């Protein structure tokens, strides 16, 4: 069978939970060998989308393929070829590291099980801890174990759901180095994250809010596509606070976001923004200069621009 160009190709994916639309006509194309970042605020539908991709949830609408297999009809095939790392640690905490890996190896019917498990332990630096119970591992080690487990059956596509949440920067860096190695060997990776530095390490990105795909493409394309102008204002902290207050609601200044000792002011109307920023900065005695908007500016802008969908309120217990 000829390999399709796209490891993931879906369109119109829609999922509702009790009338609440959680994923709304979502479409995505991920090229083979790409590391594809999946971003969006909490509750925007990332996990739900990933679950539909690997057959854990049935879409209410839409169609698509994963590795060329239909996500509705061929989920059994997809499960065999995909490595899915859940958002919450989902291996057995009362089994040791080695026992967890052996369990996974048996489930996938992996040949030469011992060897493969030993090799996986070695590669991830888990060999010395093989007898340790998974439940007693720290976040970073749990994440390594989970990755080892979903790589064991040599999948062609990795679906990673916030794999680095709560992991220290050093371990995150190692993790991403590893992902790039894998991608280099031909693995496709879809990874959801909240970290901007991780987003920038992806070949391409998709941004989702309220279940809707708002932007996709390379980081540069996403930034360019937002048509956003951003100014940075620097100076004395107290004066920055005054300026921030003054800019709220000023013409052109759609967003005012403090970044440490700087203020990022962005808007889609570049002319009006420039006028407002220079006026306020001059009044407060602050320096202002136009800058390239960052991904974070763009994402916040995208989310603000999208109205929260009106749904029938579901009261707890109601």
């Amino acid at each position: 069978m000829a390999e399709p160009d796209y490891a993931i190709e879906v369109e119109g994916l829609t999922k509702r939970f009790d009338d609440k639309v959680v994923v709304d006509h979502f479409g995505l194309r991920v090229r083979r060998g790409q590391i594809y970042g999946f971003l969006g605020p909490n509750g925007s539908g990332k996990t739900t989308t990933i679950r539909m991709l690997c057959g854990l949830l049935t879409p209410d609408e839409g169609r698509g393929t994963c590795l060329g297999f239909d996500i509705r009809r061929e989920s059994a095939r997809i499960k065999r070829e995909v490595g899915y790392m859940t958002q919450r640690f989902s291996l057995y905490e009362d089994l040791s590291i080695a026992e967890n890996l052996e369990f996974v190896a048996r489930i996938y019917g992996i040949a030469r099980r011992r060897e493969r498990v030993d090799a996986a332990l070695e590669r991830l630096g888990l060999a010395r801890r093989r007898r340790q119970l998974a439940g007693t591992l720290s976040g970073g080690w749990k994440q390594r174990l989970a990755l080892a487990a979903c790589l064991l059956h040599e999948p062609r596509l990795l679906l990673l759901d916030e794999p680095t949440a709560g992991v220290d920067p050093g371990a995150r860096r190692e993790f991403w180095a590893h992902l790039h190695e894998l991608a280099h060997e031909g693995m496709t990776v879809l990874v959801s994250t909240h970290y901007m530095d991780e987003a920038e390490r992806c070949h391409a990105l998709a941004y989702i809010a309220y279940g809707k795909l708002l932007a996709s493409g390379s980081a540069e394309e996403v930034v360019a596509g937002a048509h956003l102008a951003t100014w940075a204002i620097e100076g004395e902290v107290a004066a920055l606070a005054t300026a921030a207050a003054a800019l709220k609601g000023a013409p052109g200044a759609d967003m005012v976001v403090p970044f440490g000792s700087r203020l990022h002011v962005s808007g889609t109307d570049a002319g009006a923004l420039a006028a407002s920023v220079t006026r306020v900065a001059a009044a407060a005695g602050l320096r202002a200069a136009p800058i390239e908007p960052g991904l974070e500016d763009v994402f916040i802008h995208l989310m603000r621009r999208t109205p929260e969908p009106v749904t029938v309120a579901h009261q707890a217990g109601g």
Partner: protein
Amino acid sequence: MFSWSRFAAILVKEFVQVRRDRLTFAMMIGVPVMQLVLFGYAINMDPKGLPMAVVSADASPFTRSLVRGLEASGYFRVVAQPATQAEAEALVAEGDVQFVLHLPADFSRRLARGERPVALLEADATDPAATGNAIAAVQAVNQSGLDRDLSGPLASLRQGPPAFELRVHRRYNPEGITAYNIVPGLMGVVLTMTMVMMTSIAMTRERERGTMENLLATPVRPFEVMAGKIVPYILIGYVQVVVILVAAKLLFRVPMVGSLALLSAILVLFIAANLAVGFTFSTLARNQMQAMQMTFFFFLPSMLLSGFMFPFRGMPGWAQAVGEVLPLTHFLRIVRGILLKGNSWDAVALEVGALAAFLVAAGTVALARYRETLD
């Protein structure tokens, strides 16, 4: 220092949580209602209308009158008139009748001659509680059974000692030792409790800990999950059986006249049936607490309506109907039949069929309820 506000915080939270956990709420109402109904209406310590077979080699007004006398006591109900001893034997073994009345060929003749003939009443005394009162009632029949028929020249027989002797023969458990009945039954009760509980938690635990999501993302099939989770508990069940059998033998000296091999084979079926129930619960329960509650909800009628604690035949029809659905009911008949009566395959085949039907039904529900997705 006691703080009313902190106390109220806990109090309000508990109320909210209880109200939200619908199943717990339903159980708090459901369990007392169920207990009231079962104890109040279903259970009868004085079972009447017990099925009896009459093997009569002598059809005469006297014998008919004797049978009528037994029926008039309310404890006996003639359901079969087998022609041969062997047929009667099979009826007792399979539990279709509780009593067999044997009337010898020369009963009326010897009665007329004043020779005090003997009629034999065989009782299936595996459960002393079921037959105790009926046997006591026999004595009254002994005294007055034929008084009305003894007229004319036989009227003199009315005076003096009874005109015939109704001899009771308690089979299987002649001394009426309750332990003989309880201990084998306990095997079924223990298995029901532990097997249902273990498996009902097995799946809910996966869901509660989040490991279910990982499991579902693998190519594993529902039947593989079910079988893989059930088999270890079958082995645990066997360990329990061995413990109970050894205790029954050494501590309670329970007779074991039947084939232990046959019992072992049937045990697989019974254990699997309970495990399938547990598996079904675990697909319904949202957490381990709910799984435990469902287990209890199944266990209670199993204890009370199966004939373990109270004589099955003492229960009203609807309770017997519920009892017939429960695997424990059939298993009790099988295990008591094999251990105490020495029943062979033929005598237990029907009950085994009932167990098998239950297993198929429960297994089908369990597999149908098993979701391969998180929907």
